[in-house]
């Protein structure tokens, strides 16, 4: 690669970082007045949250069931299958709940956000709002960002709860782990710190993923191809960042 091409790429990267940074700053500023219209935020919590419930609950159930099977198989080798409840709870609350919810959120809600905002841009709706003296940052971007931010921890919590039910279903009902032992082991092993770690993770994922989705939609080229590209970028960036941040946050909580 020639020097010039490399310099061009570095410059382009810096420019994009700057544009996103500016967008984030404007978005955060717009969040304060956005609370004056709670109806819009509630609508977006419904869009990003309630409408993702079925996919989240199904995924949570099967993840929990797999945990039940795999966990039982593994723990049985060491003769400690009664620790299944604790193992399932810790892996769900700290890792699988927040991370898998975030990945599903990127595919289900993130893409919807990006393509919706991208199409609003392509059809001049954002410009029309701005010309009507209604800041689209405040009316469109901020409520969607806040909606995603609030919905994510709720979804992650539901994922974990349904997952625990799934693990219990397999471990207790199918494999015959004692019900009382399953739940009491879980209670004993699980500390407040583990729950907090899960909540912090999903809050961070919620903020980052909503920002990516809204930003990509806002910056997308106002064409069919541009919106499609932006939607793809949302999923790719969200997935990679979720896993990267998960490592960073896990390390930070050790």
């Amino acid at each position: 690669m020639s020097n010039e091409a490399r310099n061009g790429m570095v410059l382009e990267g810096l420019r994009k970082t700057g544009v996103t940074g500016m967008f984030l700053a404007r978005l955060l500023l717009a969040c304060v007045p956005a609370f004056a219209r709670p109806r819009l935020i509630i609508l977006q919590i419904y869009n990003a949250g309630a409408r993702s419930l079925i996919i989240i609950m199904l995924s949570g159930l099967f993840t929990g069931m797999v945990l039940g099977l795999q966990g039982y198989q593994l723990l049985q080798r060491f003769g400690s299958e009664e620790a299944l409840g604790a193992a399932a709870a810790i892996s769900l609350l700290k890792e699988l709940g927040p991370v898998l919810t975030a990945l599903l959120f990127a595919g289900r809600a993130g893409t919807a956000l990006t393509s919706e905002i991208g199409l609003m841009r392509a059809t001049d709706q954002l410009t029309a709002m701005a010309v009507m003296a209604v800041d689209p940052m405040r009316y469109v971007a901020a409520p969607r960002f806040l909606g995603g931010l609030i919905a994510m921890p709720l979804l992650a919590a539901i994922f974990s709860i349904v997952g625990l039910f799934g693990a219990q279903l397999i471990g207790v009902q199918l494999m015959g782990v004692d019900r009382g032992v399953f739940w009491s082991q879980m209670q004993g092993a699980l500390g407040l710190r583990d729950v907090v770690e899960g909540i912090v993770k999903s809050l961070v994922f919620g903020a980052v993923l909503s920002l990516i989705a809204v930003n990509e939609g806002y910056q997308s080229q106002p064409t069919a191809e541009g919106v499609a590209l932006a939607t793809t970028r949302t999923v790719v960036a969200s997935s990679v960042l979720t896993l990267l941040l998960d490592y960073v946050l896990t390390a930070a909580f050790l």
Partner: protein
Amino acid sequence: MVDVRDVHYAVDGRPIFTGLNVRVRRGLITAVMGPSGTGKTTLLRLITGQLFADSGQVLVFGRDIASLSRSEVYAERRRMGMLFQNGALLTDIDVFENVAFPVREHTDLPESVIRKLVLTKLEAVGLRGAAELMPSELSGGMARRVALARAIVMDPEVLLYDEPFAGLDPISLGVILRLIKQMNQALGITSVVVSHDVQELATIADQSYLLSGGAVVASGTPQELARSDSETVHQFMTGSEEGPVRFHYPAPDYASQLLGADEG
């Protein structure tokens, strides 16, 4: 009302305007005509403060729009209405809510007043019966009329029309023409119509500007333009392919490019 003075504007080094002068006088319909790609829409963006000129001034209501703060620009925009080419209706709410949108955002009027206001404006564009429809259920002409109702719901002093006739059937076109005239005469709204439909504009415009190559090449009443002996004006008014405005995008010599393709 709007005074564009010696504006220069370029995008990525490509000049759009090189010394543009346009004056919009109160109470008149001003037409801005020109071939596609001469920056007519850009001019509207400059007037509404979405873009700022590289040099020169854009005075709106007597104040330089570039010197205003963000909130002042928003305050100025409340005195303007703009009709977008495709209507730009908000697709997630119905026709009634689209027209009510600026009212709800900018005022605290009670619901009964908003209802009357919106229905009056919808009646003015003949679409009171379509209040419950969603934007996706409207035809192009209807969407534009709803957008017009939305643009006038806050009683603006200036209305900006971006290509209001593009892609309309003759009946819708006639309706839009009549509405523009009506808004101007009945409500006294100063109007700026940007379009390349010369014949239609000629019937309603009080003052016309013809843009080409980044500046105004001719101005006057439509009748004056029609009598002009300038080649550019003549070409545009009669829609001829031959003339100073080139139909072909700049390209290397045709024959040598075709012959060269064999060798390559």
